Protein backbone atom coordinates (compact mmCIF):
# COMPACT_ATOMS: atom_id res chain seq x y z
CA UNK A 1 0.00 0.00 0.00
CA UNK A 2 1.17 3.52 -0.80
CA UNK A 3 -0.01 6.28 1.49
CA UNK A 4 0.61 9.89 0.60
CA UNK A 5 -0.19 12.11 3.55
CA UNK A 6 -0.43 15.84 3.14
CA UNK A 7 2.59 15.97 0.88
CA UNK A 8 3.97 19.24 -0.41
CA UNK A 9 7.04 19.39 -2.58
CA UNK A 10 9.04 22.42 -3.69
CA UNK A 11 11.90 22.06 -6.20
CA UNK A 12 15.20 23.77 -5.40
CA UNK A 13 14.35 26.48 -7.97
CA UNK A 14 11.29 27.42 -5.91
CA UNK A 15 8.61 25.76 -8.05
CA UNK A 16 5.93 24.37 -5.77
CA UNK A 17 5.03 21.18 -7.58
CA UNK A 18 2.76 19.53 -5.00
CA UNK A 19 0.52 21.25 -2.47
CA UNK A 20 -0.74 19.16 0.44
CA UNK A 21 -1.58 16.11 -1.65
CA UNK A 22 -3.14 13.06 0.01
CA UNK A 23 -3.78 9.78 -1.75
CA UNK A 24 -4.01 6.10 -0.85
CA UNK A 25 -3.23 3.34 -3.34
CA UNK A 26 -4.06 -0.17 -2.16
CA UNK A 27 -2.23 -3.33 -3.11
CA UNK A 28 -3.48 -4.78 -6.37
CA UNK A 29 -5.04 -1.52 -7.47
CA UNK A 30 -4.72 -0.13 -10.99
CA UNK A 31 -4.46 3.64 -10.94
CA UNK A 32 -4.10 6.15 -13.77
CA UNK A 33 -2.88 9.62 -12.86
CA UNK A 34 -3.93 12.16 -15.47
CA UNK A 35 -3.86 15.92 -15.81
CA UNK A 36 -2.28 19.01 -17.22
CA UNK A 37 1.40 19.29 -18.15
CA UNK A 38 3.19 20.55 -15.09
CA UNK A 39 0.35 19.49 -12.76
CA UNK A 40 2.78 17.50 -10.61
CA UNK A 41 2.05 13.97 -11.87
CA UNK A 42 5.66 12.92 -12.39
CA UNK A 43 6.71 14.69 -9.19
CA UNK A 44 4.09 12.69 -7.30
CA UNK A 45 5.11 9.27 -8.63
CA UNK A 46 8.79 10.00 -8.01
CA UNK A 47 7.81 10.06 -4.33
CA UNK A 48 6.60 6.45 -4.53
CA UNK A 49 10.10 4.99 -4.86
CA UNK A 50 11.84 7.68 -2.85
CA UNK A 51 13.51 9.43 -5.80
CA UNK A 52 12.01 12.55 -4.26
CA UNK A 53 11.30 13.09 -0.58
CA UNK A 54 8.44 15.38 0.49
CA UNK A 55 9.27 18.93 1.57
CA UNK A 56 6.51 18.43 4.12
CA UNK A 57 4.13 15.56 4.83
CA UNK A 58 5.07 11.91 4.38
CA UNK A 59 4.89 8.97 1.98
CA UNK A 60 4.59 5.44 3.36
CA UNK A 61 5.22 2.40 1.17
CA UNK A 62 3.90 -0.71 2.89
CA UNK A 63 4.06 1.26 6.13
CA UNK A 64 7.69 2.32 5.66
CA UNK A 65 8.44 6.04 5.52
CA UNK A 66 10.34 6.75 2.26
CA UNK A 67 12.54 9.20 4.13
CA UNK A 68 14.00 6.35 6.18
CA UNK A 69 15.11 3.96 3.43
CA UNK A 70 17.34 4.23 0.36
CA UNK A 71 16.02 4.35 -3.19
CA UNK A 72 17.87 1.08 -3.83
CA UNK A 73 15.89 -0.67 -1.08
CA UNK A 74 12.59 0.78 -2.26
CA UNK A 75 13.37 -0.08 -5.87
CA UNK A 76 13.26 -3.79 -5.09
CA UNK A 77 9.53 -3.39 -4.47
CA UNK A 78 8.72 -0.39 -6.58
CA UNK A 79 9.77 -0.56 -10.23
CA UNK A 80 9.80 2.68 -12.18
CA UNK A 81 9.71 3.07 -15.96
CA UNK A 82 10.57 6.60 -17.00
CA UNK A 83 8.74 8.72 -19.53
CA UNK A 84 11.81 8.98 -21.70
CA UNK A 85 13.45 5.57 -22.16
CA UNK A 86 16.78 7.22 -22.95
CA UNK A 87 17.02 8.24 -19.30
CA UNK A 88 17.35 4.64 -18.23
CA UNK A 89 18.97 2.74 -21.09
CA UNK A 90 22.74 2.56 -21.35
CA UNK A 91 23.87 -1.03 -21.99
CA UNK A 92 25.35 -2.43 -25.19
CA UNK A 93 22.60 -4.92 -25.92
CA UNK A 94 18.94 -5.30 -25.06
CA UNK A 95 19.77 -8.49 -23.18
CA UNK A 96 22.39 -6.78 -20.97
CA UNK A 97 20.02 -3.93 -20.34
CA UNK A 98 17.27 -6.23 -19.09
CA UNK A 99 19.78 -8.20 -16.98
CA UNK A 100 21.39 -5.11 -15.44
CA UNK A 101 19.12 -4.56 -12.45
CA UNK A 102 18.87 -8.30 -11.78
CA UNK A 103 22.68 -8.46 -11.53
CA UNK A 104 22.61 -5.46 -9.19
CA UNK A 105 20.06 -7.11 -6.97
CA UNK A 106 22.37 -10.14 -6.79
CA UNK A 107 20.17 -12.75 -8.45
CA UNK A 108 21.86 -16.02 -9.51
CA UNK A 109 23.01 -16.17 -13.16
CA UNK A 110 20.59 -19.01 -13.88
CA UNK A 111 17.64 -17.05 -12.58
CA UNK A 112 18.81 -13.97 -14.47
CA UNK A 113 18.93 -15.91 -17.72
CA UNK A 114 15.40 -17.18 -17.21
CA UNK A 115 13.98 -13.86 -16.16
CA UNK A 116 15.64 -12.01 -19.03
CA UNK A 117 14.32 -14.46 -21.60
CA UNK A 118 10.86 -14.24 -20.04
CA UNK A 119 10.74 -10.43 -20.02
CA UNK A 120 12.19 -10.09 -23.52
CA UNK A 121 9.67 -12.52 -24.89
CA UNK A 122 6.82 -10.84 -23.02
CA UNK A 123 7.60 -7.54 -24.70
CA UNK A 124 8.14 -9.04 -28.11
CA UNK A 125 11.83 -8.11 -28.26
CA UNK A 126 13.35 -11.55 -28.87
CA UNK A 127 14.65 -10.63 -32.32
CA UNK A 128 16.52 -7.66 -30.81
CA UNK A 129 18.23 -9.56 -27.98
CA UNK A 130 21.71 -8.74 -29.27
CA UNK A 131 20.88 -5.33 -30.69
CA UNK A 132 21.97 -2.06 -29.10
CA UNK A 133 18.94 -0.32 -27.57
CA UNK A 134 20.01 2.83 -29.38
CA UNK A 135 19.48 1.21 -32.77
CA UNK A 136 15.82 0.66 -31.93
CA UNK A 137 12.84 2.91 -32.58
CA UNK A 138 11.37 5.10 -29.83
CA UNK A 139 8.51 2.69 -29.21
CA UNK A 140 10.84 -0.30 -29.07
CA UNK A 141 13.21 1.43 -26.61
CA UNK A 142 10.21 2.10 -24.43
CA UNK A 143 9.49 -1.64 -24.39
CA UNK A 144 13.11 -2.42 -23.48
CA UNK A 145 12.80 -0.10 -20.48
CA UNK A 146 9.58 -1.83 -19.45
CA UNK A 147 11.12 -5.31 -19.87
CA UNK A 148 14.08 -4.35 -17.68
CA UNK A 149 11.76 -3.40 -14.83
CA UNK A 150 9.29 -6.28 -15.16
CA UNK A 151 12.27 -8.67 -15.11
CA UNK A 152 12.94 -8.15 -11.39
CA UNK A 153 9.29 -8.65 -10.56
CA UNK A 154 8.59 -5.67 -8.29
CA UNK A 155 5.34 -5.50 -6.30
CA UNK A 156 4.48 -2.05 -7.55
CA UNK A 157 5.02 -1.11 -11.19
CA UNK A 158 5.00 2.59 -12.05
CA UNK A 159 4.82 3.52 -15.72
CA UNK A 160 5.28 7.15 -16.73
CA UNK A 161 3.52 7.63 -20.08
CA UNK A 162 3.77 4.00 -21.20
CA UNK A 163 1.78 4.44 -24.43
CA UNK A 164 3.96 7.12 -26.02
CA UNK A 165 5.29 5.92 -29.34
CA UNK A 166 3.36 2.66 -29.06
CA UNK A 167 1.15 1.59 -31.91
CA UNK A 168 -2.34 0.25 -31.45
CA UNK A 169 -1.28 -3.40 -31.19
CA UNK A 170 1.43 -2.66 -28.64
CA UNK A 171 -1.07 -0.69 -26.58
CA UNK A 172 -3.45 -3.64 -26.60
CA UNK A 173 -0.55 -5.82 -25.46
CA UNK A 174 0.32 -3.35 -22.75
CA UNK A 175 -3.30 -3.42 -21.60
CA UNK A 176 -3.15 -7.20 -21.40
CA UNK A 177 0.10 -7.11 -19.33
CA UNK A 178 -1.48 -4.72 -16.93
CA UNK A 179 -4.48 -7.02 -16.56
CA UNK A 180 -2.03 -9.89 -15.93
CA UNK A 181 -0.04 -7.87 -13.40
CA UNK A 182 -3.21 -6.95 -11.54
CA UNK A 183 -4.28 -10.60 -11.54
CA UNK A 184 -0.95 -11.35 -9.80
CA UNK A 185 -1.97 -8.84 -7.11
CA UNK A 186 0.57 -6.28 -8.25
CA UNK A 187 -0.13 -2.61 -7.97
CA UNK A 188 0.09 -0.77 -11.29
CA UNK A 189 0.31 3.00 -11.44
CA UNK A 190 0.44 4.79 -14.77
CA UNK A 191 0.77 8.44 -15.61
CA UNK A 192 -0.82 9.07 -18.95
CA UNK A 193 -2.38 11.58 -21.30
CA UNK A 194 -3.85 8.83 -23.41
CA UNK A 195 -7.59 9.09 -22.75
CA UNK A 196 -8.46 6.41 -25.29
CA UNK A 197 -6.12 3.98 -23.54
CA UNK A 198 -7.67 4.80 -20.17
CA UNK A 199 -11.15 4.35 -21.65
CA UNK A 200 -10.13 0.85 -22.77
CA UNK A 201 -8.41 -0.13 -19.50
CA UNK A 202 -10.88 1.28 -17.01
CA UNK A 203 -8.54 2.02 -14.08
CA UNK A 204 -9.18 4.13 -11.00
CA UNK A 205 -8.45 7.65 -12.24
CA UNK A 206 -6.77 10.44 -10.27
CA UNK A 207 -7.05 13.87 -11.92
CA UNK A 208 -4.43 16.51 -11.11
CA UNK A 209 -4.09 20.22 -11.81
CA UNK A 210 -1.62 22.75 -10.46
CA UNK A 211 -0.07 20.59 -7.79
CA UNK A 212 -3.38 19.32 -6.45
CA UNK A 213 -5.62 16.32 -6.85
CA UNK A 214 -8.81 17.66 -8.41
CA UNK A 215 -10.87 14.48 -8.22
CA UNK A 216 -10.59 10.70 -8.19
CA UNK A 217 -13.01 7.97 -9.17
CA UNK A 218 -13.65 5.32 -11.81
CA UNK A 219 -12.61 6.09 -15.38
CA UNK A 220 -16.15 6.54 -16.62
CA UNK A 221 -17.07 9.00 -13.89
CA UNK A 222 -13.93 11.05 -14.47
CA UNK A 223 -13.71 11.06 -18.27
CA UNK A 224 -17.36 11.88 -18.98
CA UNK A 225 -17.62 14.84 -16.63
CA UNK A 226 -17.04 17.90 -18.85
CA UNK A 227 -16.07 20.17 -15.95
CA UNK A 228 -13.47 17.80 -14.55
CA UNK A 229 -12.12 17.05 -18.01
CA UNK A 230 -11.54 20.75 -18.69
CA UNK A 231 -10.07 21.34 -15.25
CA UNK A 232 -7.51 18.56 -15.80
CA UNK A 233 -6.71 19.78 -19.34
CA UNK A 234 -7.68 16.50 -20.96
CA UNK A 235 -10.37 15.76 -23.54
CA UNK A 236 -13.14 13.19 -23.33
CA UNK A 237 -12.72 9.94 -25.26
CA UNK A 238 -14.07 10.12 -28.79
CA UNK A 239 -17.02 7.87 -27.91
CA UNK A 240 -18.07 10.28 -25.15
CA UNK A 241 -17.73 13.21 -27.54
CA UNK A 242 -19.97 11.47 -30.06
CA UNK A 243 -22.64 10.88 -27.43
CA UNK A 244 -22.39 14.42 -26.07
CA UNK A 245 -23.31 15.45 -29.61
CA UNK A 246 -26.40 13.22 -29.42
CA UNK A 247 -27.48 14.34 -25.94
CA UNK A 248 -30.66 16.06 -27.11
CA UNK A 249 -32.01 12.78 -28.51
CA UNK A 250 -32.14 11.37 -24.99
CA UNK A 251 -29.17 9.00 -25.30
CA UNK A 252 -26.83 8.53 -22.32
CA UNK A 253 -23.71 10.71 -22.32
CA UNK A 254 -21.61 8.75 -19.83
CA UNK A 255 -20.20 6.21 -22.30
CA UNK A 256 -16.51 5.62 -22.96
CA UNK A 257 -16.40 2.19 -24.56
CA UNK A 258 -17.24 1.26 -28.16
CA UNK A 259 -19.24 -1.83 -27.21
CA UNK A 260 -21.46 -0.06 -24.72
CA UNK A 261 -21.91 2.63 -27.36
CA UNK A 262 -23.13 0.04 -29.83
CA UNK A 263 -25.53 -1.45 -27.26
CA UNK A 264 -26.94 1.97 -26.40
CA UNK A 265 -27.52 2.80 -30.07
CA UNK A 266 -29.11 -0.56 -30.90
CA UNK A 267 -31.37 -0.26 -27.85
CA UNK A 268 -32.41 3.21 -28.87
CA UNK A 269 -33.22 2.06 -32.41
CA UNK A 270 -35.26 -0.86 -31.11
CA UNK A 271 -37.25 1.28 -28.71
CA UNK A 272 -38.06 3.95 -31.26
CA UNK A 273 -38.88 1.71 -34.22
Amino acid at each position, binding site marked *: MIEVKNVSFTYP*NGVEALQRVSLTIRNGEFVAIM*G*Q*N*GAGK*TTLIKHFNGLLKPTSGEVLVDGVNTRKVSVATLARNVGFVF*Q*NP*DHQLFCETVEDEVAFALRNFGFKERTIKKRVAWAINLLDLTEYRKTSPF*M*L*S*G*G*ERKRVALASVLAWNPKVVILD*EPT*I*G*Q*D*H*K*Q*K*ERLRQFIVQLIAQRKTVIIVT*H*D*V*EFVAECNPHVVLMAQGNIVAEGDAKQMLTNPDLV*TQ*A*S*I*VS*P*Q*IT*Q*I*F*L*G*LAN*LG*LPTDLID*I*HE*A*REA*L*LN*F*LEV*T*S
Partner: protein
Amino acid sequence: MYPGGTKRALEDVSITIEKGEFVVLTGPSGCGKTTLCRCFNGLVPHFYGGKLEGNVLVTDLTVSEHPVQELARHVGLVFQNPENQLFALFVEKDVAFGLENLGVSRDEIRKRVDWALKMTGIEDLRERTPHELSGGQQQRVAIACVLAMQPDVMVLDEPTSFLDPLGAQKIFEVIGELNKKLGITVLLIEHRLDLASRYCNHVVVMDEGRVVLDGEPREVFNSEKAHLIGVGIPKATRLSQVLEKSGVHLGRIPVTSEEASHVLKEVLRRD
Protein backbone atom coordinates in the same frame (compact mmCIF):
# COMPACT_ATOMS: atom_id res chain seq x y z
CA MET B 1 19.82 0.28 -44.73
CA TYR B 2 21.48 1.79 -41.62
CA PRO B 3 25.20 1.14 -41.00
CA GLY B 4 25.52 -2.13 -39.08
CA GLY B 5 21.92 -3.01 -39.89
CA THR B 6 20.90 -6.43 -41.13
CA LYS B 7 17.58 -5.49 -42.60
CA ARG B 8 16.48 -2.63 -44.82
CA ALA B 9 14.63 0.04 -42.84
CA LEU B 10 12.83 1.07 -46.01
CA GLU B 11 11.88 -1.22 -48.84
CA ASP B 12 10.75 -0.01 -52.23
CA VAL B 13 8.94 3.08 -50.93
CA SER B 14 7.24 5.40 -53.40
CA ILE B 15 4.96 8.21 -52.33
CA THR B 16 4.08 11.63 -53.66
CA ILE B 17 3.09 14.45 -51.38
CA GLU B 18 1.66 17.50 -53.10
CA LYS B 19 2.42 21.04 -51.99
CA GLY B 20 -0.02 22.18 -49.30
CA GLU B 21 -1.17 18.73 -48.25
CA PHE B 22 -1.61 17.68 -44.62
CA VAL B 23 -0.40 14.11 -44.47
CA VAL B 24 -0.61 11.75 -41.53
CA LEU B 25 1.98 8.97 -41.62
CA THR B 26 1.22 6.05 -39.34
CA GLY B 27 2.00 2.37 -38.85
CA PRO B 28 3.35 -0.06 -36.24
CA SER B 29 6.38 1.03 -34.24
CA GLY B 30 9.61 0.20 -36.04
CA CYS B 31 7.91 0.21 -39.46
CA GLY B 32 10.22 2.87 -40.91
CA LYS B 33 8.19 6.06 -40.36
CA THR B 34 10.99 7.94 -38.65
CA THR B 35 13.55 6.73 -41.19
CA LEU B 36 11.38 7.96 -44.04
CA CYS B 37 11.09 11.38 -42.37
CA ARG B 38 14.85 11.56 -41.94
CA CYS B 39 15.11 11.25 -45.73
CA PHE B 40 13.13 14.44 -46.26
CA ASN B 41 15.76 16.78 -44.88
CA GLY B 42 18.74 14.65 -45.79
CA LEU B 43 19.60 13.34 -42.28
CA VAL B 44 19.39 10.05 -44.13
CA PRO B 45 21.85 9.48 -45.71
CA HIS B 46 24.08 12.49 -44.86
CA PHE B 47 24.07 12.21 -41.05
CA TYR B 48 23.11 8.64 -40.29
CA GLY B 49 25.16 7.13 -43.12
CA GLY B 50 23.97 3.80 -44.47
CA LYS B 51 22.84 3.10 -47.97
CA LEU B 52 20.00 4.91 -49.70
CA GLU B 53 18.79 3.52 -53.01
CA GLY B 54 16.32 5.38 -55.15
CA ASN B 55 15.57 9.08 -55.11
CA VAL B 56 13.95 11.50 -52.71
CA LEU B 57 12.94 14.84 -54.16
CA VAL B 58 11.88 17.69 -51.91
CA THR B 59 10.75 20.91 -53.55
CA ASP B 60 12.65 19.73 -56.65
CA LEU B 61 15.91 19.17 -54.76
CA THR B 62 17.40 15.70 -54.85
CA VAL B 63 18.10 14.99 -51.21
CA SER B 64 21.25 12.92 -51.68
CA GLU B 65 22.86 15.74 -53.72
CA HIS B 66 22.20 18.59 -51.30
CA PRO B 67 23.60 19.05 -47.80
CA VAL B 68 21.36 19.05 -44.72
CA GLN B 69 21.89 22.75 -44.06
CA GLU B 70 20.52 23.62 -47.50
CA LEU B 71 17.56 21.27 -47.19
CA ALA B 72 16.82 22.62 -43.73
CA ARG B 73 15.68 25.89 -45.28
CA HIS B 74 12.89 24.03 -46.98
CA VAL B 75 12.12 21.22 -44.58
CA GLY B 76 11.72 21.70 -40.84
CA LEU B 77 11.89 18.54 -38.77
CA VAL B 78 10.47 18.27 -35.27
CA PHE B 79 12.01 15.24 -33.60
CA GLN B 80 10.20 12.61 -31.60
CA ASN B 81 12.35 13.38 -28.58
CA PRO B 82 12.62 17.16 -28.06
CA GLU B 83 15.76 16.75 -25.96
CA ASN B 84 17.63 15.70 -29.09
CA GLN B 85 16.89 19.01 -30.69
CA LEU B 86 17.23 21.64 -27.94
CA PHE B 87 20.60 22.80 -26.69
CA ALA B 88 20.64 26.57 -26.02
CA LEU B 89 20.62 28.13 -22.56
CA PHE B 90 17.44 30.07 -23.20
CA VAL B 91 14.29 29.14 -25.07
CA GLU B 92 14.51 32.37 -27.04
CA LYS B 93 18.04 31.56 -28.21
CA ASP B 94 16.99 28.10 -29.30
CA VAL B 95 14.13 29.47 -31.37
CA ALA B 96 16.38 32.14 -32.94
CA PHE B 97 19.25 29.76 -33.68
CA GLY B 98 18.14 28.56 -37.11
CA LEU B 99 17.39 32.08 -38.29
CA GLU B 100 20.75 33.41 -37.07
CA ASN B 101 22.43 30.70 -39.09
CA LEU B 102 20.58 31.76 -42.21
CA GLY B 103 21.75 35.35 -41.69
CA VAL B 104 18.27 36.80 -41.28
CA SER B 105 18.21 40.44 -40.06
CA ARG B 106 17.94 41.17 -36.32
CA ASP B 107 14.52 42.79 -36.56
CA GLU B 108 13.15 39.96 -38.64
CA ILE B 109 14.55 37.41 -36.20
CA ARG B 110 12.90 39.19 -33.29
CA LYS B 111 9.59 39.34 -35.13
CA ARG B 112 9.62 35.71 -36.11
CA VAL B 113 10.71 34.47 -32.68
CA ASP B 114 7.89 36.46 -31.04
CA TRP B 115 5.43 35.06 -33.54
CA ALA B 116 6.60 31.45 -33.12
CA LEU B 117 6.49 31.69 -29.32
CA LYS B 118 3.01 33.16 -29.50
CA MET B 119 1.72 30.53 -31.92
CA THR B 120 2.91 27.75 -29.64
CA GLY B 121 1.69 29.48 -26.48
CA ILE B 122 5.05 29.66 -24.72
CA GLU B 123 5.76 33.41 -24.58
CA ASP B 124 6.20 33.10 -20.81
CA LEU B 125 8.94 30.48 -21.23
CA ARG B 126 11.13 32.78 -23.35
CA GLU B 127 13.82 33.17 -20.69
CA ARG B 128 13.69 29.68 -19.25
CA THR B 129 16.29 26.99 -19.90
CA PRO B 130 14.96 24.30 -22.26
CA HIS B 131 16.46 21.47 -20.23
CA GLU B 132 14.59 22.44 -17.10
CA LEU B 133 11.22 22.37 -18.83
CA SER B 134 8.72 19.51 -18.78
CA GLY B 135 8.51 17.15 -21.76
CA GLY B 136 5.38 18.89 -23.01
CA GLN B 137 6.90 22.34 -22.77
CA GLN B 138 10.02 21.13 -24.57
CA GLN B 139 7.86 19.83 -27.40
CA ARG B 140 6.33 23.26 -27.81
CA VAL B 141 9.78 24.83 -27.91
CA ALA B 142 10.90 22.33 -30.55
CA ILE B 143 7.87 23.18 -32.67
CA ALA B 144 8.51 26.92 -32.20
CA CYS B 145 12.12 26.46 -33.43
CA VAL B 146 10.89 24.94 -36.66
CA LEU B 147 7.97 27.35 -37.02
CA ALA B 148 10.28 30.35 -36.82
CA MET B 149 12.06 29.12 -39.95
CA GLN B 150 8.75 29.19 -41.85
CA PRO B 151 9.76 26.22 -43.96
CA ASP B 152 7.89 24.99 -47.05
CA VAL B 153 7.49 21.59 -45.46
CA MET B 154 7.12 20.70 -41.80
CA VAL B 155 7.83 17.14 -40.78
CA LEU B 156 6.69 16.34 -37.25
CA ASP B 157 7.49 13.06 -35.55
CA GLU B 158 4.83 12.53 -32.85
CA PRO B 159 5.18 16.18 -31.85
CA THR B 160 2.59 16.13 -29.08
CA SER B 161 3.32 12.80 -27.42
CA PHE B 162 4.27 14.41 -24.08
CA LEU B 163 1.50 17.00 -24.14
CA ASP B 164 -1.76 16.77 -22.24
CA PRO B 165 -4.70 16.16 -24.60
CA LEU B 166 -5.94 19.74 -24.50
CA GLY B 167 -2.40 20.99 -25.20
CA ALA B 168 -2.05 18.45 -28.00
CA GLN B 169 -5.31 19.57 -29.55
CA LYS B 170 -4.11 23.18 -29.50
CA ILE B 171 -0.86 22.24 -31.20
CA PHE B 172 -2.72 20.29 -33.89
CA GLU B 173 -4.94 23.34 -34.40
CA VAL B 174 -1.85 25.52 -34.81
CA ILE B 175 -0.34 23.09 -37.31
CA GLY B 176 -3.68 22.88 -39.13
CA GLU B 177 -3.81 26.66 -39.33
CA LEU B 178 -0.25 26.95 -40.67
CA ASN B 179 -1.15 24.40 -43.28
CA LYS B 180 -4.34 26.22 -44.32
CA LYS B 181 -3.23 29.84 -44.05
CA LEU B 182 0.42 29.70 -45.06
CA GLY B 183 0.14 26.66 -47.28
CA ILE B 184 2.93 24.86 -45.42
CA THR B 185 2.99 21.21 -46.39
CA VAL B 186 2.65 19.08 -43.27
CA LEU B 187 3.80 15.54 -42.73
CA LEU B 188 2.79 14.31 -39.31
CA ILE B 189 3.82 10.99 -37.81
CA GLU B 190 1.13 10.02 -35.35
CA HIS B 191 -0.42 7.04 -33.60
CA ARG B 192 -3.20 8.95 -31.88
CA LEU B 193 -5.43 9.26 -34.90
CA ASP B 194 -8.49 10.21 -32.86
CA LEU B 195 -6.86 13.57 -32.30
CA ALA B 196 -5.00 14.09 -35.57
CA SER B 197 -7.35 12.80 -38.23
CA ARG B 198 -9.60 15.84 -38.46
CA TYR B 199 -6.79 17.98 -39.87
CA CYS B 200 -5.40 15.71 -42.56
CA ASN B 201 -6.43 15.11 -46.14
CA HIS B 202 -4.03 12.29 -46.92
CA VAL B 203 -3.05 9.22 -44.89
CA VAL B 204 -0.06 6.96 -45.48
CA VAL B 205 0.27 3.68 -43.58
CA MET B 206 3.61 1.87 -43.42
CA ASP B 207 4.40 -1.64 -42.31
CA GLU B 208 7.78 -3.38 -42.25
CA GLY B 209 9.51 -0.67 -44.24
CA ARG B 210 6.89 -0.53 -46.98
CA VAL B 211 4.02 1.79 -47.77
CA VAL B 212 0.93 -0.40 -47.56
CA LEU B 213 -1.88 2.15 -47.74
CA ASP B 214 -1.85 5.60 -49.29
CA GLY B 215 -4.93 7.69 -49.87
CA GLU B 216 -7.89 9.63 -48.56
CA PRO B 217 -8.40 9.30 -44.74
CA ARG B 218 -11.91 7.87 -44.95
CA GLU B 219 -10.88 5.12 -47.36
CA VAL B 220 -7.70 4.26 -45.49
CA PHE B 221 -9.30 4.09 -42.04
CA ASN B 222 -12.20 2.04 -43.31
CA SER B 223 -10.03 -0.53 -45.11
CA GLU B 224 -9.76 -4.03 -43.72
CA LYS B 225 -5.98 -3.83 -44.11
CA ALA B 226 -5.61 -0.87 -41.75
CA HIS B 227 -7.49 -2.83 -39.14
CA LEU B 228 -5.33 -5.93 -39.65
CA ILE B 229 -2.03 -4.06 -39.42
CA GLY B 230 -3.23 -2.64 -36.12
CA VAL B 231 -3.59 1.01 -37.03
CA GLY B 232 -5.35 2.90 -34.22
CA ILE B 233 -8.39 3.71 -36.33
CA PRO B 234 -10.42 6.65 -34.93
CA LYS B 235 -13.23 5.46 -32.65
CA ALA B 236 -15.76 7.31 -34.81
CA THR B 237 -14.81 5.10 -37.77
CA ARG B 238 -14.65 1.97 -35.60
CA LEU B 239 -18.12 2.66 -34.23
CA SER B 240 -19.55 2.91 -37.74
CA GLN B 241 -17.89 -0.42 -38.62
CA VAL B 242 -19.26 -2.10 -35.50
CA LEU B 243 -22.73 -0.76 -36.25
CA GLU B 244 -22.49 -1.87 -39.85
CA LYS B 245 -21.91 -5.43 -38.61
CA SER B 246 -25.09 -5.14 -36.53
CA GLY B 247 -27.03 -4.09 -39.60
CA VAL B 248 -27.08 -0.33 -39.00
CA HIS B 249 -25.88 1.57 -42.07
CA LEU B 250 -24.64 5.10 -41.62
CA GLY B 251 -24.31 6.03 -45.30
CA ARG B 252 -21.15 8.06 -44.78
CA ILE B 253 -18.08 6.89 -42.89
CA PRO B 254 -17.26 9.30 -40.05
CA VAL B 255 -13.67 10.18 -39.09
CA THR B 256 -14.27 12.77 -36.35
CA SER B 257 -16.67 12.75 -33.41
CA GLU B 258 -18.71 15.62 -34.92
CA GLU B 259 -19.18 13.69 -38.15
CA ALA B 260 -20.20 10.61 -36.18
CA SER B 261 -22.73 12.55 -34.10
CA HIS B 262 -24.08 14.08 -37.30
CA VAL B 263 -24.55 10.87 -39.29
CA LEU B 264 -25.90 9.05 -36.22
CA LYS B 265 -28.47 11.80 -35.69
CA GLU B 266 -29.75 11.28 -39.22
CA VAL B 267 -30.02 7.54 -38.74
CA LEU B 268 -31.65 7.81 -35.31
CA ARG B 269 -34.19 10.36 -36.51
CA ARG B 270 -34.96 8.43 -39.69
CA ASP B 271 -36.15 5.42 -37.72
